[in-house]
């Protein structure tokens, strides 16, 4: 076998160096901007602990509400006690941690997206420059590369974050159903549509998950029953449809969950009015 060294052939060497003439930087740059916007907004919104509920809409960042504030009249846009699973915030809650239901929630969808096979491509390219683009010099230069064999072995637990993500589809679905009922009266508002669209996009993203596709059938070499369709082969085909659009649903759901929180926040703050059939 011929040895590789030295590398010759006129190839550019160094971070970001390439002979490519197409706009390869635009993809990683857009990813970087959208991700940073999402991270900054989500962190800010999660730390607020207010304006996340305006009847009948609950922000997806704060769902499910595990604990809520004891005196909600003092906290604008906080969920009422009957929506909280465990009532009001416990007295043992450490004082240095902000009282915000979102802090207990976001680790689950956050870890699902962090370990997602699509997002790995996005952030390895945009944040780690490993590599920043195809046939483009890596950020790490010629330092040793370990891939996902050392610290990033954690990525192999993606399927466990999937289990939590599947539970969240039901939780957010319940919120979407409740968004069509205010004070016991059925109706519809712009917020109901936004919240419903949010759970549809998140479900579409989750059902396209590579781990999901593997667990429901992909792990088998033989999915049919003598060539006849089975539940397994049908589910695998449907998951494959979502999987082929995993990137699109990843971005749409990421942006839409932010839009949903922002909408509810602005309605709660009184900056915009929710058009609905109740008023």
């Amino acid at each position, binding site marked *: 076998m011929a040895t590789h060294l030295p590398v010759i*052939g006129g190839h550019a060497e160094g971070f970001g160096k390439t002979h490519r*003439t197409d706009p390869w930087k635009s993809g990683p740059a857009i990813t970087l901007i959208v991700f940073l916007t999402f991270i900054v907004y989500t962190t800010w919104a999660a730390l607020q602990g207010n304006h996340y509920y305006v009847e009948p809409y609950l922000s997806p960042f704060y769902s499910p509400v595990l604990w809520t504030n004891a005196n909600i009249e003092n906290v604008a846009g906080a969920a009422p006690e009957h929506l909280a699973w465990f009532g009001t915030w416990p007295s043992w809650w450490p004082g240095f941690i902000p009282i915000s239901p979102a802090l207990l929630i976001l680790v689950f969808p956050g870890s699902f997206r962090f370990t997602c096979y699509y997002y790995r491509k996005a952030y390895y390219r945009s944040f780690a420059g490993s*590599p920043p683009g195809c046939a483009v010099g890596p950020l790490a230069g010629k330092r040793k590369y370990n*891939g*996902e*064999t050392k610290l990033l072995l954690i990525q192999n637990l993606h399927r466990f974050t999937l289990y939590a993500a599947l539970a969240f589809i039901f939780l957010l679905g319940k919120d979407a159903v409740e968004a069509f009922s205010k004070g016991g009266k059925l109706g519809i508002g712009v917020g109901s549509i936004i919240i419903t669209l949010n759970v549809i996009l998140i479900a579409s993203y989750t059902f396209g998950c590579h781990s999901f596709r593997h667990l429901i059938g992909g*792990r088998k070499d033989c999915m049919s029953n003598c060539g*006849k*369709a089975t539940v397994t082969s049908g589910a695998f085909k449907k998951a494959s449809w979502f999987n082929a659009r995993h990137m699109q649903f990843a971005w749409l759901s990421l942006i839409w969950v932010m839009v949903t929180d922002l909408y509810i926040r602005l309605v709660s703050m009184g900056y915009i009015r929710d058009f609905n059939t109740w008023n």
Partner: protein
Amino acid sequence: MAKRLFKVWRGNAEGGEFKEFEVQVDPGMVVLDVLHRIQTHDANDLALRWNCKAGKCGSCSMEINGKPRLACMTRMNSFSDTETITCQPMKTFPVIKDLVCDVSFNYEQNKRIPKFKPKPRDADGQYRMYQEDVDRVQEFRKCIECYLCQNVCHVLRDRDGREQQTFIGPRFMIRVASLEMHPLDTDDRIPELKKEYGSGMCNITRCCTEVCPEHIGITDNGIIPLKERVVDRFYDPVAIIGRKLLGRKVRTKTRAEEEGKK
């Protein structure tokens, strides 16, 4: 079409440089046609590999304007009228001459993979499998072995190729996938996949999929499902405990490890 400026890397294993050629380009030409015109009129000794001119033999792989592509499938009208076109050999493999590389690295990787081991024939002496079950692996059979995916894979390509001993590369992950997912195959290559072929070295940046001229879902349909099978075997604590409780045994050692134990 007017004359176009081409920069073609010329040299051998000792070194080389870009040479410029101004070439008349006619409508309908692809980059390979232009390189043949250069060969005919300006540089008779220009070395390049080609065969079918139809994107099916995988011979004319090179880097055109920095992107790994087949020269026969890269149409000249895909470039702007004033763009200089740069042609280089693939970076991942050692240069023999000009645009021709020594791709024997790939043949060595192929030899490492245990071959197809079918289950016994049915009573009537036939093998039976169903289209529904082989749809997945048929996609992998489209591979023309152009090695563009091997070339663009940053694990093999960067760091002067030092990691070439640690990862078998996307083309051969696909070959492993075509065997592992085959409904008739009975062999087990999962321990080798993790410990010898370096499935963990792939960080799913999908460049292999982007450059594949056959549009094979290398990452989504081949590498990731294999990584998930490695998770089943080595990293999923629930699956590992479940197997222990049910007394199900699976291979976790490679053939080399098993032989070493003996």
